[in-house]
């Protein structure tokens, strides 16, 4: 039996509500946990950005090791079709608000792998990307600059709506799912039920649904817990 979960949206009567909102978005911009998905050469410039030369921790950014704990998904380097599956699974497991940073030219347009048949060219076709840091390789200064840009976007999210790219994944799920299906085949499905989440958090729009989500419904098999046994 599936239980219908519903969040009751209460009317916000607290006169200080927007003050709390501002405080939380301030804290969100000041404290970012980062999960780095390092493929190829991309990881080389991150250690200097994290360690004593540039020291990310003074900006409140520190590495975390699981998608559940992380705020930023840092994708450094080319994403082959096989790894893209894992990246999408990781991205969907993260807790919103979540941010994606694509580092290196490879995530922007395929970079030097643009002729490759096995590489996903543009990352933002498969998941919303907040900040791209171009370069082959971008220097640590550029990485820090990109992270600062992300922090500013989060702070000014209310005014300019730059820091909420993650909502786009729910709002236009059909588009992203379509691109994913084009690569992985029609029977592509992930363990995370994005449509249900979009409903739950009141993020669904007309573009959440479409022919691709219908295709997903047709092929979707219910996820059952794996049998626990020792081989």
């Amino acid at each position: 039996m599936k239980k219908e979960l519903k969040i009751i949206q209460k009317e916000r009567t607290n006169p200080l509500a927007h003050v709390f909102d501002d405080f939380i978005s301030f804290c969100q911009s000041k404290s970012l946990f980062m999960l780095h998905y390092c493929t190829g050469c991309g990881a080389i410039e991150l250690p200097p950005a994290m360690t004593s030369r540039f020291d990310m921790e003074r900006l409140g950014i520190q590495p975390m090791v699981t998608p559940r704990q992380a705020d930023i998904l840092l994708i450094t380097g080319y994403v082959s079709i096989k790894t893209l599956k894992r990246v999408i699974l990781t991205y969907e497991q993260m807790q919103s608000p979540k941010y994606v940073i694509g580092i290196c030219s490879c995530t922007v347009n395929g970079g030097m792998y643009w002729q490759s048949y096995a590489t996903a060219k543009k990352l933002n076709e498969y998941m919303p990307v907040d900040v791209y840091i171009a370069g082959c390789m971008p220097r640590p200064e550029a990485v820090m600059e990109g992270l600062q840009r992300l922090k500013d976007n989060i702070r000014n999210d209310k005014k300019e709506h730059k820091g909420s790219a993650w909502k786009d994944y729910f709002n236009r799920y059909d588009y992203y799912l379509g691109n994913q299906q084009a690569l992985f085949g029609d029977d592509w499905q992930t363990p995370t039920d994005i449509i249900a989440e979009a409903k739950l958090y009141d993020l669904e729009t007309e573009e959440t649904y479409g022919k691709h989500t219908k295709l997903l419904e047709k092929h979707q098999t219910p996820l059952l817990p794996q049998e626990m046994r020792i081989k």
Partner: protein
Amino acid sequence: MNALHLMAELIFMPLIAFIVGMMMVLMMRKIAARLQRRIGPPFFQPLYDIVKLYGKDTQISHGLIHDIGIIMAVGGYIGAEILLPVPGMEGIAAKGGVITLSYFLMIPSLGMALGVGQCANPNGSIGISRALTAMLAYDIPFILVVFGAAWHYQSTSLIGMIEYQQMHQWGIVEMPLLAIAGLFALQGMLGKQPFEIYIAPAEIATGPMVEMSGKYMGGLFVMQTFQLYTAGVLYASLFLGGGTSFLTLLPKAFLVVALPMSIAFMFPRYKTEDVIRILWKWPVMLALISLAFIL
């Protein structure tokens, strides 16, 4: 003491513990940063982290026991705070002595075990089984230290112990071996470097915390502040003479917490069985020799 006064103390003691604990977290991160020649996080970083984690839009619960486990983890320490006398505030310390306190200190680990169990993540299960084994390892010297101190001061009440030390000498002067054994156990209790196999970020993805997100992770961050405060103040009360005011107590507590962090980076990481072997050998031996002198 009237009820209102007691109520105020029961609120203020955990609150002070939380604020001081956050400063201790900041101090530990600063020490780690300075040892690695970094600048380290800004002053309010622990607060930012906690507020951000509680302010997450998505909160994934794995079930009722997961929720209760985190409440147990934080609640166990809040219970410990009101049993821990600080200058000017005694809470219910006179009613429950150091033995009750050492029971309370085990509740958080058991709560975590319950919560992590329901997450059904293999890394979490491995982590928590290691954490409970490590608890078994450091609790034997810890109980010996508490027993020795209680025997020496002829009191199981922390208030009585502090009074004794302020009239005579500090515990660390009268029984140095026991104090060293206590420091040894403290390193294990705080899960610092030679004994941090159950966290092991690179191997088992932070072990017990692997499925914790949003407010659950926030709960664990709050728990960490309480843990540092409890460890620091308890050790200061047992061996460093407590304090007549916060000005004398807090520097001692901060010093006690700073020690494990300062030496942590010298060590690699011991395997679980080695953790037990070392913690059951050296601190227990020191504590037993010290007990032979005391008894």
